[in-house]
């Protein structure tokens, strides 16, 4: 299923903690336009996809989406971290 990799996709070094940025980032988390919902939709729609290339594409996009969602929480921590 899923493998968790203990590293970000791109290195981040936040020099100035910024609660406003954190507030904006957390707004991307949920709701109908949230990334979390979108990745779940991609992953669920694989089950009725007849073409293998597209099944694979939906999987990869859904996975990438999850990578974006989960780190949103840590970007939340990073701007607040001293």
């Amino acid at each position: 299923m899923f493998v968790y990799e203990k590293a970000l996709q791109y290195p981040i070094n936040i020099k100035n903690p910024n609660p406003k940025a954190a507030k904006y980032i957390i707004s991307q988390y949920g709701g109908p336009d949230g990334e979390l919902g979108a990745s779940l939709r991609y992953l669920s729609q694989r089950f009725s996809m007849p073409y293998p290339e597209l099944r694979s594409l939906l999987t990869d996009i859904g996975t990438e989406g999850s990578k974006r969602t989960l780190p949103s929480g840590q970007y939340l921590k990073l701007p607040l971290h001293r």
Partner: protein
Amino acid sequence: MRINQFLADMGGDAPVSARYSPRSDGGNRNGYGYSDRNGNGSGCGQCCEGGNGSSSCSTTGSGCNHDRRQGRCERGAACGPLPCPASIAMAYTPMQQPNGCMFEPECALKRGTLFSGLELPLGNDYRVGTLPPTALSDVQASAFAALELALYLDTHPDDADALQLYNDYQRAANEKQAEFSRTYFPLTRACNTNNSGSYSWINDPWPWQRRSGGKENF
């Protein structure tokens, strides 16, 4: 041209006559032979070579010579980054062709994409990011390049060159990841060697933590 074949199969004529080959003079960023956003590049003029010549046809009062069926258009007509005789008010998604150039993995991670044709930054801001020279950024760059090729191969599974490159990049990424896990800390639970006598997976650093003093920032 695949799109022409597709349209022919659907029973229509083949209106798209764009050349999907990269310019030999390297004239344009995406290598597809389109005009860029400023209307420069091969644009409309090149793709209409070999059309019907100067057969007469009725045009609008503005003297516009843009005739989809005849395959004619003039430079400056509103083609944008699309094939020259493209219909207005229709949505197109050009298929990614296998002939754009690719960046090196490290450069790809900085630019955000492996494929030069897909480098379309917001607001045309082509400034390239920086990558700190840490061990982890090496792993990240390798893994990113392999991932980009994997996404490309989803829709182009028979591209033998891309497949070969993917195999090489993925193998390199796996090796780098294994080496990093041996040297610093395990990147996945399965790479855990647990040589220290305790379950090292639970140890820091997790991605949201900084090393003390922020010196080597994974």
